[in-house]
């Protein structure tokens, strides 16, 4: 897939969006079925993709099947457009489909995502494609696929509540913070992929079509536009989203999902928007958080976004206390771009 | 012929493991029990005996043409006849003893009446309210109901139920009849007191009681609820003289209340005190 510099080898040309047309037809049929049965996991013949499982092969195949030449593609990973995974997938479609790409949520017609739903409300002419590692919400308690299929077929979802019960019994509250199970259109219980439960309400009655692709598990499922999506809970332990004590340290946004960024090994940290596009747009509009640089007269440079901890580590409450370097920090930015001198 | 010595059937379980259910308050029959009672009482020539004080309402128990043979398949199909052509009546308010030497089949016959042993021929009809039930041919469920409401069995041995107190063991049949637990326990306590069972034992499971103490618990359990027909297998075998007198009194009261009693009374004193007549099973055994 890499470009050739050897000269004698012919340039490799790909079918539009890499997959052959028959494969795309097969995937589209699965998608149509998934849309027709909201929340139901439709098996499909997932192909080997030129990237390892766990890197979004399911989402990539779904995207490839629905992508058109006029689409504008955005790819995000944990809210960021500029992480390795997002960059790689964006590059993949630029190369194989030649489509336009963007980081702006509002400009995109197709958004492939891993672990987040954009903060900006989606619209009817958008499709959100999720990368899904484990599509089966009941897998935690029931390892047999034959049995979980049966449970879905018969709408036996007591087991799902057993998991929530266990959470409350062990932690005093529903400690599941991501991949929080939802009931779709009053029927199927679905794993929303490892998005934070903060994003769950965004799935409900969403104007955009939401598609989910699991490559290793070979499943596709969907939430059609304007579908009721309800997070499971107990009467006396209702579903609640995370709240953050402080606004985004960079753009001062409230009511958005924040990532914790550790600044040093002395306990210094900051909370910033997980959605980089949203944060950058707000900063461009002049919003300033407590640790943001003052508006510069020259160029209005947007402060680069630091790398957050991956969800899994943070949410298990045992995040290693390692200092992460700022992602995308300009060369020679020096030590501690978000240090005290900036904040003060 | 001594049936007991020939082990007429493979006797299954040790006492401790046999537990009673609603269907069976009695211990399992035990043919190995030595019966040394002399024969006594008058026996009719046909083996069909009727007491003089019989009521005109008709018998509560009508045994006719009963035959039973044990077939021991494990011993090349050896056949051990027990009784043949056994027949007699029992009327409300009378107490009748089964007599005959050890091994004559008294215990076996009692168990046939209770339905514990199945019979090869004949009828064992028990009047249950307005209905007559043939123990020999009725459905198991009907027999269960008959035992629960009409036909009680007081055996020699208490079948100990682990972890259940003596008081509860005694009260259980009353509770089963729908009496409140409180009232049943009070009645049970009164009965145990009358039988001179020290009150400190009431709350203990009877497993560790002496033979006499267990038998008194067993008698109390067997007599606490009203059953129009009572079968008693050596109810006083392990009792001292004072307690035998108490049991005689209890049996008299049952008779006064119109209960018909069929029993094996090894003890001559008790037999003479309570029995109106004796049916000698020797003839039934001889016929077999």
């Amino acid at each position, binding site marked *: 897939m890499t470009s050739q510099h050897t000269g004698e080898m012919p340039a490799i040309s790909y079918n539009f969006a890499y997959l052959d047309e028959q494969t795309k037809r097969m995937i589209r049929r699965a998608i149509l079925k998934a849309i027709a049965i909201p929340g139901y996991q439709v098996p499909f013949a997932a192909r080997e993709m030129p990237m390892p499982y766990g890197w979004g092969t399911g989402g990539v195949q779904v995207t490839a099947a629905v992508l058109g030449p006029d689409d504008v593609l955005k790819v995000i990973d944990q809210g960021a457009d500029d992480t390795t995974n997002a960059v790689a997938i964006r590059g993949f479609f630029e190369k194989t489909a030649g489509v336009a790409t963007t980081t702006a949520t509002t400009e995109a017609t197709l958004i492939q995502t891993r672990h987040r739903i954009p903060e900006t409300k989606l619209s009817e002419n958008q499709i959100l494609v999720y990368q899904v590692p484990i599509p089966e919400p009941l897998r935690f308690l029931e390892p047999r696929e034959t049995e979980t299929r049966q449970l879905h*077929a018969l709408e036996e979802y007591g*087991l799902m509540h057993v998991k929530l019960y266990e959470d409350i019994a062990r932690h005093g509250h529903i400690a599941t913070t991501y991949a929080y199970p939802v009931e779709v259109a009053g029927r199927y219980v679905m794993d929303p992929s490892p998005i934070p439960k903060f994003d769950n309400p965004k799935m409900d009655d969403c104007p955009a079509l939401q598609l989910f692709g699991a490559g290793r598990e070979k499943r596709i499922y969907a939430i059609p536009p304007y579908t009721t999506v309800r997070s499971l809970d107990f009467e*006396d332990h209702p579903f609640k989203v995370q709240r953050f004590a402080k606004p985004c340290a960079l753009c001062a946004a409230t009511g958005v999902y924040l990532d914790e960024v550790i600044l040093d090994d002395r306990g210094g940290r900051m909370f910033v928007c997980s959605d980089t596009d949203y944060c950058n747009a707000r900063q461009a509009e002049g919003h300033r958080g407590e640790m943001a640089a003052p508006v510069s007269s020259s160029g209005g440079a947007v402060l680069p976004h630091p790398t957050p901890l991956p969800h899994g580590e943070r949410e298990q409450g045992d995040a290693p206390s390692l200092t992460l370097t700022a992602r995308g920090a300009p060369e020679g930015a020096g030590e501690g771009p978000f240090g005290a001198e900036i904040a003060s | 012929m001594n049936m007991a010595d020939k082990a007429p*059937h493979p006797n299954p379980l040790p006492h401790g493991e046999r537990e009673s259910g609603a269907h069976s308050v009695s211990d399992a029959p035990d043919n190995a029990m030595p019966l040394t009672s002399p024969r006594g009482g008058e026996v009719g020539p046909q083996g069909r005996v009727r007491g003089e004080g019989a009521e005109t309402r008709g018998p509560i128990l009508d045994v006719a043409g009963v035959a039973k043979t044990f077939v021991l398949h494990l011993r090349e199909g050896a056949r051990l006849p027990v009784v043949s052509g056994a027949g007699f009546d029992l009327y409300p308010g009378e107490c009748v003893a089964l007599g005959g030497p050890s091994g004559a089949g008294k215990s076996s016959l009692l168990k046939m009446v209770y339905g514990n042993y*199945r019979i090869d021929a004949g009828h064992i009809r028990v009047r249950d309210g307005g209905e007559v039930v043939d123990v020999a041919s009725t459905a198991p469920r009907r*027999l269960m109901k008959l035992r*629960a409401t009409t036909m009680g069995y007081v055996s020699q041995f208490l079948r100990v139920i682990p972890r259940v107190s003596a008081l509860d063991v005694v009260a259980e049949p009353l509770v089963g009849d729908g009496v409140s637990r409180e009232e049943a326990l009070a009645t049970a306590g009164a009965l145990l007191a009358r039988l001179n069972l020290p009150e400190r034992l009431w709350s203990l499971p009877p497993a560790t009681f002496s033979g006499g103490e267990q038998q008194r618990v067993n008698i109390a359990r067997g007599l606490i609820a009203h059953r129009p027909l009572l079968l008693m297998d050596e109810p006083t075998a392990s009792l001292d003289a004072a307690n035998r007198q108490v049991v005689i009194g209890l049996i008299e009261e049952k008779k006064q209340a119109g209960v018909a009693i069929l029993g094996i009374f090894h003890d001559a004193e008790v037999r003479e005190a309570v029995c109106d007549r004796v049916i000698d099973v020797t003839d039934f055994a001889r016929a077999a």
Partner: protein
Amino acid sequence: MTDQANQALAAADAPLLVSEGLSKNYGARIGCRDVSLDIYPGEVLAVVGESGSGKSTLLGLLSTELAASAGRVSYRMRDGVLRDLASLGAAERRLLMRTDWGLIRQNPADGLRMAVSAGGNVGERLMAVGWRHYGNIRREATDWLGRVEIAADRIDDDPRSFSGGMRQRLQIARNLVTKPRLVFMDEPTGGLDVSVQARLLDLIRGLVSEMGLAVVIVTHDLAVARLLSHRMVVMRHGRVIETGLTDQVLDDPREPYTQLLVSSVLAA
């Protein structure tokens, strides 16, 4: 087994479960042949026989875990109508199994969720039938743990930390929490120490009587059958060879095989 069991027996004269000509073949081998029997409300039926006699197959057929090669099983639904279980849809049958029926397996690990807390194990059936109030579920689970003599402070421990006897008691609580009318038990005391067995049997006996449960219990242990059951079915080579009240069959066994079974028990 007095108490309400007797009243239930007297009151309900219609069978709860009826099997007719039930057969199951495993290829050429016969698992179970032409078994017809009735189980009435509040009645405990023991199925005895040695390994390979077909008793477990029969239990599987009665509980619809196995599909019959011939014959049928009917069940009197709560509305009083006797229905052929094969005519029920999968959803209806499974609902029946997790509400009106219980199934106690010999190995508690097969009947419990070993990675789920005791409370979750007991609460699962409640959640399955729509309980959605955590506090109520927990209260009910605590109550049931008490009834099976598991200390309330073990409610959040998972069964892996429980002894064999405790696991089996937990399995019983998990099954009885929806107040079923019919419970299938497959060697419930198998593999337990004798003292643990006695306690468990006593517990089962009490609950069966108190709740007026109908029970089909498969056991090779005649003492268990004697303690718990009203009626008994003796199986050999896949067929029922002898039936009757439990004390009849045990005290006056007629068939050669039954006599062999009964005489093979060691007197302690």
